[in-house]
């Protein structure tokens, strides 16, 4: 009887796993083809001088050497990306969490409405509207409101003055950043077992803050990890928002992040080898930061 039981168990597992693979197959195909393979290819391309037209020639470490030692703009872009990541990453993360928490308190129908309202900017292309709001003529909304209030006397160039550019870009990035991470946190809040709160009330939890720290956050660890990963990726690879909002290139490279720098070398200067080198460096940095955050969040026990 025992061998029979084992045989049944084995065949059950195999057919189950085949079904799982079949369901994964379409997404896996796209993922491997368009994400994994390009990443793997760009690593060796970083060691060549590929200009997209002629065959690449091996140039060794010269790209990386130029990158760190003689590329002034790259160093500047690291600074810009860090400022960007520090301001928009954690702030956005906290914002996602707070909003998800607050929305969770609302009655059922309002929950959906508000989730939609906060999620839509991440999908839609909001740059035209923001360009209108920050437009540099006196008809732009910010300019005209401030001029009406008497704070300004003449139109400020929000999008082309290097003093204001980073601020504007961070603002819009925060607006757009409520994306997949936000949804994950929303779902996470809904899945918390209500009995935990009751048990907590019995055990002596006095206010909402303690409830948050002792029950909610530990229960949401997987979602918080996911949201953190998404925010880090978004913060470090922010490039489109800068390009679409303040133009390419931004005045004096004020909103020039590492990704924009890579885009510049790849598509404008036809130096794909150098661009791949930049992307490889960014990839390694992000990988390191991710590992750090995972360890941090995993220790929160």
């Amino acid at each position, binding site marked *: 009887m025992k061998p029979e039981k084992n045989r049944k168990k084995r065949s059950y597992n195999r057919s189950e796993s085949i079904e799982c693979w079949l369901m994964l197959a379409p997404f896996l195909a796209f993922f491997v083809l368009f994400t994994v393979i390009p990443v793997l290819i760009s690593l060796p391309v970083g060691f060549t*001088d590929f*200009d*997209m*037209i*002629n065959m690449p*020639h091996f140039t060794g470490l010269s790209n990386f050497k130029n990158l760190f030692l003689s590329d002034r703009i790259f160093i500047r872009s690291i600074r810009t990306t860090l400022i960007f990541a520090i301001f928009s990453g954690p702030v956005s993360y906290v914002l996602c969490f707070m909003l998800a928490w607050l929305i969770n308190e609302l009655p059922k129908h309002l929950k959906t409405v508000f989730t939609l309202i906060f999620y839509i900017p991440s999908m839609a292309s909001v740059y035209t509207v923001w*360009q209108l709001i920050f*437009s*540099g*003529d*006196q*008809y*732009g909304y910010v300019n*005209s409101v401030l*001029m*009406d209030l008497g704070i300004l006397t003449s*139109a400020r*160039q929000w*999008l*082309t*003055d*290097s*003093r204001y550019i980073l601020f504007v870009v961070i603002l819009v990035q925060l607006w757009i950043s409520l994306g997949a991470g936000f949804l994950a946190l929303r779902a996470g809040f809904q899945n918390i077992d209500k009995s935990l709160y009751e048990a907590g009330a019995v055990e002596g939890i006095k206010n909402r803050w303690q409830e948050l720290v002792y029950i909610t956050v530990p229960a949401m660890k997987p979602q918080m990890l996911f949201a953190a990963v998404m925010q880090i990726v978004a913060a470090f690879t922010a490039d489109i928002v800068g390009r679409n909002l*303040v*133009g*390419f*290139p931004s*005045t*004096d*490279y004020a909103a020039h992040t590492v990704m924009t720098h890579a885009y510049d070398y790849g598509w*404008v*200067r*036809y*130096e794909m080898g150098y661009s791949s080198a930049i992307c490889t460096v960014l990839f390694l940095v992000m990988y390191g930061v991710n590992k750090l955050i995972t360890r941090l969040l995993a220790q929160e026990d």
Partner: protein
Amino acid sequence: MRGFNSARRISIDGEVPCSEFENVRFSYDNDWQNVIPQTDEGEDIYVYLTAGEGHNITMEAVPGDIGEPMRKLEPIVDELNEYYRRILMITGPSPDKYTDYNVDRVIPEITGDFKDISGRLKEIKKSIEDLTGFTGSEAAGIERMYVILDKCTEKPARIPMYLSQLKDNIAAISSWMRDYRDQPLEIDYIEIASADAEFSQVKENFFSSLAFGAKAFIASFKQDYSLVSGSEKKDALTVWVSLGRDQALAVKELVESEFTPVYDIPVNISIVQGGVVEAALAGKGPDVALFLGGEFPVNLAARGLLERLDEKDGFEEAKQNFQEEAMTQYTYDGGVYGMPLSQSFPVMFYRKDILTEAGITTLPETWDDLVEMMPALQRNNLHAGLVLPSSNISASTEPGHTFALLMLQNGLGYYNDDMTATTFDSVSAVQSFEKWTDLYTDYRFEQVYDPFSRFRDGTYPIVIQNYTFCNQLKSAAPELNGLWGFTLVPGTELPDGTVSHAANSAGSGAVVFTKTKNKDDAWQFLKWFTSTEVQSEYGTLVEGLLGTMGRYDTANTEALSNLSWTPAELKILETQRDELKEIPVIPASYAVTRNIMTAFRETVNSHRNPRDTIMWYNRDINTEIKRKLKDLAE
């Protein structure tokens, strides 16, 4: 037009058979409908057609019933526009709500006239309602207008507050008037039946339309929308057109009727917008690409993707068709890699009426004249608009770029003779840069503005734009007809006393890729397409399809005179074109344009010293040029 009807005058063989045919009404309907001309009593009208010979049916758009109210509305719009501008000159575009402008005391006749206009508007609205039987949304625009005018007459002190509403309503009525002129009508077929036959049914059955929809949906997966004309032959020439469907169809018509039969070369035409560069890089590009512009020809040529044209048969003759320096945009390292197709250059547009009202009688001929005019303009809250690159800085210099104009007029190009460095460290160049930034820092020119809206509402009576702005004005702002004109760009007085109106231009051209197998066929195609005859025909075709808005800015000098420009306009265009000088595109042009803009913005926005700034950024430009030269030499 919703709520109204479109009217047509129908004539048979050049004669209108009866009075009902003078004004056949097609009422507005979303669905298919049969329209049968009938008498007032509802009887069908019969027309006699003699047998055995062909007949012509002509349908001509006529104003119809709506003509009378429209005729009364036109002068009202003109009067309102004039009042709007006079109020604007007193209050400025954003009136301060705490200031008493006393508009009714400065313009004493305003209340009386507004009352009069309001009365006339009420009459017109009534007559429109009588026509259609109900208040359409169009008549509501008129109602909004006279409501505002009544409010202005009641409380003249609030006129500045209503300024923006006045402007919006005037614009709404103008655009409605423009729409009515079109008398839009789409005809599917014309049916002629004798007395005993029945006209076919046009109301569609729900199920048959459902079946049709399903079939059309499935067919949409099978059809190749980008291929405009295909040829079965394997060695056909592949041509990609980087513009819209209308232009591609025009090319196709010309190719099929005049190129393939004469030269016996089959051609495949596809519409591909964007992605031509990427396709070429991937090796899947075409043999010939049309309307490729910007910095792409030079960049592709520098990397060996384009075929060199100046050593081919017939190049010298083909070159005569264009302005002297038009080839510059397609020249790299001494070789020419493309033929110009379109060429756009700047001219100065001006509002005659507003300048006269502001007391300016002569147009500025030089930059100094323009600056001298500024106090008179700015006192009346008016401005002048110059060309300034927007956020996305392209590698090729925009036509009319103020800095480029100043440099060229002083006889300087951007680069030295062998294109290895810029000329920006010379005294003349630094002075030009300083002059440019002074316009914005000392003389308060605005950096960002919308040329069309501002020219139309009159706040910017002088605007420098490409001459194609003309087409936009003619088709989208018809209420300004006769009130504006254009002339040469402001120039610089040279030491010998003459004034140089040099300017740069930009355009798109035709290129041949090196990977093509039939190089001679491709070159033949280029020569044919850029010839005067074909360019004129193409221009007329495109203008016929797209209207005035789509008038083609051909690079072919003679073809331009064959398009529908008036002789006066043509003269100005030719004079300006003769003075064009070009700024070459080099592979490192992106560094040049972006550093110039950064230097400009640092000087103007952050108030730095112009001379230091341009010298500083010039270093970056030269480093980048050297780097690119080394990069491409390997």
